[in-house]
């Protein structure tokens, strides 16, 4: 039996059953805990000003954290509008709907930067899971997200569907609210198989060192900063 993980803030509730939480598509779902309400975080730039979707460079890798200070997401503006309302299967083989890219061009997507195969992730020291516009040695096609560790590849234009390699389900997708008038984005949830529980368990020691004891579990409030990946990580291997 897993020990309950209860935050002092009271946001987190121990959820023994999970099936109920899993049903709602825009709620943050975890095997051992569920959030009452996923945080709504406005995407801002380094200076704290709201980020404009149109200002994102196409095919460049950006990182923001959602919903915790320590959980990385990869933000991409692809070259074209993605398909909408794509059906994907999660780790339990249950179907879910990925709504598609947002922004004026329908090309802005974001996924948790934690590999669905072996949890390699984009961290302060190094980013192992990144997007390439051009073909790389590990990806048979252009425009894929590749994980350097064991060559898992995902299709960002299709809800991070697995393209090749050992992953068995897609990266969790960030759900956005997009305001066309202001061209601004708000992250409001995660869809698919969310690996935060396993991520915290796998890296607890490192996260405690990086963020301070227990501080890695703090939820962000109101806003989250978007930075180019080279500013987030000391090293960004390209593979």
């Amino acid at each position: 039996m897993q020990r309950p993980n209860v935050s002092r803030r009271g946001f987190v509730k121990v959820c023994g059953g999970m099936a109920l939480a899993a049903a709602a598509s825009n709620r943050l779902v975890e095997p051992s805990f569920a959030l009452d309400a996923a945080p709504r975080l406005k995407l801002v730039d380094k200076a704290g000003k709201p980020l404009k979707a149109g200002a994102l460079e196409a095919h460049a890798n950006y990182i923001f954290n959602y919903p915790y200070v320590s959980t990385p997401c990869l933000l991409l503006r692809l070259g074209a509008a993605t398909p909408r309302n794509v059906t994907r299967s999660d780790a339990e083989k249950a179907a879910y709907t990925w709504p598609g890219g947002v922004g004026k061009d329908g090309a802005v997507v974001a996924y948790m930067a934690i590999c669905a195969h072996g949890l390699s992730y984009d961290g302060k020291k190094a980013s192992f899971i990144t997007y390439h516009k051009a073909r790389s040695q590990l990806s048979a096609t252009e425009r894929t997200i590749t994980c350097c560790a064991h060559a898992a590849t995902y299709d960002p234009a299709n809800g991070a569907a697995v393209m090749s390699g050992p992953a068995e389900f897609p990266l969790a997708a960030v759900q956005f609210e997009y305001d066309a008038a202001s061209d601004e984005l708000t992250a409001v949830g995660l869809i698919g198989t969310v690996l935060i529980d396993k991520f915290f368990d796998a890296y607890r020691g490192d996260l405690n060192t990086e963020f301070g004891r227990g501080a890695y579990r703090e939820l962000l409030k109101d806003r989250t900063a978007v930075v180019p990946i080279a500013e987030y990580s000391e090293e960004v291997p390209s593979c």
Partner: protein
Amino acid sequence: MTSRRQDSSKQLGRRQFLKLSGTSALAAATAATAVVSATGSASAAISGRTNRPADLPKATGPRCVIVGGGASGLTLAKYLKKENPKFDVVMVEPNYLYMSPFLSNLFIDDVLDASFLQHSFCDAARKGNYFWLQGMLIDLDREKKRAYTSEGYIDYQFIALAPGIDYNYASIGITDPALVEYCKLNYPAGFKPGSEIFTIKDKLGRFERGVFLLTVPTGNYRCLPAPYERACLIGDYFKKNKIKGKIVLLDPGEKPFAPKAPGFLAAFSELYKDYIDYKPSTTIKSVDPIKKTVTTEFDTISFDDAAIYPRVRGAKLLEDLGLADMKSPQLEADIDPYKYFCKGDKTCYVTGDARPMPFSKSGNTANSEAHFVAKVIAAAEAGKDIDWMSPQTVCYSMVNAHPEESIMVAAKYDEKTFGFTDVQLDNKRSAALGKANHEWGAGLYRDMF
């Protein structure tokens, strides 16, 4: 009967004696009964530890015994439990501590600390929700479905053996048991985890000048690129420490491990021209570990120190249990090549490097394969069968440590030929791949523990 029990009490500790006396007639009867081994012949009655039940809680579901806590066994234990939480999984492994053979070349060249390679079996079993019985398999009665270990016997529903490899010193002309032992201790191969690698690292610290010999085995040996990576990293060590040494690398093949040959050859000529003397197409006829010479078909080479890697074979345990194919060149397991069960017995499986199929013998392959075999066994328990899934081989080789640069290959296997397919290859050494090299290993540990 009485005298045996009395004799037993002299050999047994107090706890075991009390246990034996407590279950008296039953235990004594078991001890007196001839143990029918897998080979079918009744061995002499054994008394002692192996003839009592192992100290385990009563099975709460179908009991699966995994023999061996390497990349294959650890992955299998964890994923069997995930495939069917009702399984009662017991992993039998004698070592106190896990140490990976993979990445060990990086350890000997000071790229990684030993602690990176070492992990706790307690953690594996605790997180994977299974039992770790610290002991070794002694005998197997497949009719009774009873596994006799050094810590007592376990009745099972399914057993999977992942015992790994042993070395075949006869393949390099060493047959005298005293010389085999001498070679093992003085010039260890370094492909079974633990002590061998520490000894090789220690040798580098002591090496002052002369020839350090490395050998590439014949056959399908554990970790095909490793001897070349080791040559590179010892070359790096000599360079870094300004050691007037020469690495002589004897290779029966025409060139290094096929997909990565360009990457290794480039490193040999661009980085280690003054350090590595690569001798391809060279077959070892004999080794004199006392005189420190190797005789090939061409000449006799003297060495000052060495890590001698002979041909590998399936772990001797399989032969002892009658599970090896005695006609196969490496005496590997006699199993179905797609579903891993011992011929005619879908309750007994062999996985990992002891397999006869020509897949790469590597941690990543074994880890990926075990995911599939866990599904096979779970399906077998439910009376079902599943389609074959290829294991995946992902393989990084660090060819330079200053700066850290690696090459890599990833591939799957063709269902009919078992040859490489879906090959992804990068022979251009780079720092990016060097970084990924570490993460590749870290990811494997995360999946195994």
